[in-house]
């Protein structure tokens, strides 16, 4: 069995009256690629800052490599976290970052970093303040990959990267991960871009975990049923509906859960079309406006 490298129980972080992370429970296992998904402001970065000991939780338990991460050197030196809005020392250039990195990451691979710099065409001698958003993301991606830290965090690594650079990140990550397995936590709201990379998905919205499942399971876990409104309604009547759209007499309903062979045949007989739901579509359904609307209605009721 794989070892658990991080576990949270009832983990909570509040800023005044705002609860950024609301009593979440989850575990991270060794040598897996996790996707921490959710909309902007869902609490993704806060969870990563808690895991790396940068923030102190208000409540709950958190253990990373066997102990609370904050102020424990033996835990922290196995972590690498370059935040999306990372601050760098005054007048720093990418060259300075890569020069200092080997002092902090014992597995640092300078040759790999050099190759990545060339891949991303990152200017080493330009002030970090003057870099474009994509180049700034590249600095974080290169540190994350070349550090080979046992637990590496990528915070919105795709922000500002062009299509070629996104592809390079994708390829290099999978290549290097195959050779040097480690735990990777990747946060993003650009879900389709990373969907195939992820082994496990943790979906977070408004500080709560909506979904914590193996990515393979999630991919087949929802189905969209489309056809005549009456037939669709009859077919989906007693199933968990997570999304609904309609146009005239036609309806398209997304349901949670797999359909077995008999159900598929019945759907075909009713003249209904069944379509798989991509990870991104599923997440839009789970965190999108109609769900938010229903919770607000619940609150109002």
């Amino acid at each position, binding site marked *: 069995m794989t070892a658990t490298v991080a576990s949270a129980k009832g983990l909570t972080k509040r800023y005044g009256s705002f609860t950024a992370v609301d009593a979440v429970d989850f*575990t991270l296992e060794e040598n897996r690629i996790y996707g921490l998904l959710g909309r902007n402001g869902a609490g993704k970065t806060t969870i990563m800052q808690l895991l790396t000991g940068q923030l102190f939780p208000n409540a709950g338990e958190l*253990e990373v490599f066997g102990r609370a991460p904050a102020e*424990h*050197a033996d835990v922290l030196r196995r*972590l690498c976290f370059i935040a999306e809005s990372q601050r760098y*020392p005054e007048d720093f250039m990418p060259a300075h970052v890569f020069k200092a990195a080997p002092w*902090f990451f014992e597995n640092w691979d300078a040759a790999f970093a050099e190759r990545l710099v060339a891949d991303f065409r990152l200017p080493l001698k330009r002030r970090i303040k003057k870099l474009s958003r994509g180049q700034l993301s590249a600095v974080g991606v290169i540190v994350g990959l070349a550090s080979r830290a046992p637990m590496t965090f990528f915070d919105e690594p795709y922000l500002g990267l062009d299509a070629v650079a996104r592809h390079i990140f994708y390829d290099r990550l999978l290549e290097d991960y195959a050779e040097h397995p480690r735990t990777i936590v990747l946060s993003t709201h650009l879900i389709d871009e990373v969907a195939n990379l992820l082994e496990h998905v943790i979906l977070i919205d408004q500080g709560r975990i909506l979904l914590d499942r193996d990515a393979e399971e999630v991919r087949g876990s929802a189905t969209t049923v489309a056809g005549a409104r009456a037939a669709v309604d009859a077919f989906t009547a007693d199933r968990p509906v997570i999304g609904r759209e309609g146009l005239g007499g036609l309806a398209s309903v997304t349901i949670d859960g797999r359909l077995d062979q008999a159900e598929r045949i019945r759907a075909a007989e009713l003249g209904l079309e069944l379509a798989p739901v991509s990870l991104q579509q599923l997440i839009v359904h789970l965190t999108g406006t109609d769900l938010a609307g229903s919770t607000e209605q619940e609150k109002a009721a």
Partner: protein
Amino acid sequence: MTTATATSPVRTEGRSRLNEIWRIVRLHCVNPSIFFGVPWIILGGAWAITVVIAIILTSAGAPVDQVLEGFRYSWAVLSPQWYLVAVGVQAIAFTFSFALGFGTTRRDFWLGTSAMFMFVAVEMAAAIATLVQIEKATNGWWVGAGMFDTLWYGQEGWLVDFYTSFALQMFVLFVGAGVTTIYMRWRMRGMLTLVASVIVILLGAIAAITAADGWMGLWEWFASIGIVGGFTIVLGLALVCAVGGYLVIRRATPR
């Protein structure tokens, strides 16, 4: 899985605490111009201006000794200090956040930063005390320019100049860094509380001294402790900022 974790923390051989502190010193030095370059560019610029003024004055016919005496109250020697307060602030506001991302503890970051401040203070103090002696020996760089042999400098020898510069440098760096730790921990609310507390304490002290009619006594006491005594108080304040910063930064969070 209910038990916390299966992997236990393993220490790697050859990684001592000293190394974890030393790498912070190195991190501050990755871009050496911050601590070592810019202060000397500022001092060099101030020196050049002082020399030019001295040349103008002496070529206009003023006697060298009088010109030199006129520079006694020049603050040029203190010109890098304003910049170094900002360096102390930036060490915490920017480098701290970065070092946390690279997996250091707050404790080691503060200890490494304190070591760095001490090295900078020793370097600045030794250089300034030596420049005071050179300036005296050359009678103001041969043109009557008084830049270093000014204010309290040049009166009680190299060692006193070294000690006073060291104390001042430590205070300047630690006050910038220490105050910034308060911002990093409590943000704006902490800063406002700090400013308000300092004002209340100062006003309270002024009221108490005035009520006790103690101003004459206070000035006499300051005169009695002398330059060395005065700068020992400055060094004490630096130490308060250093210890306070250590306590505050232990729960500070990056921006």
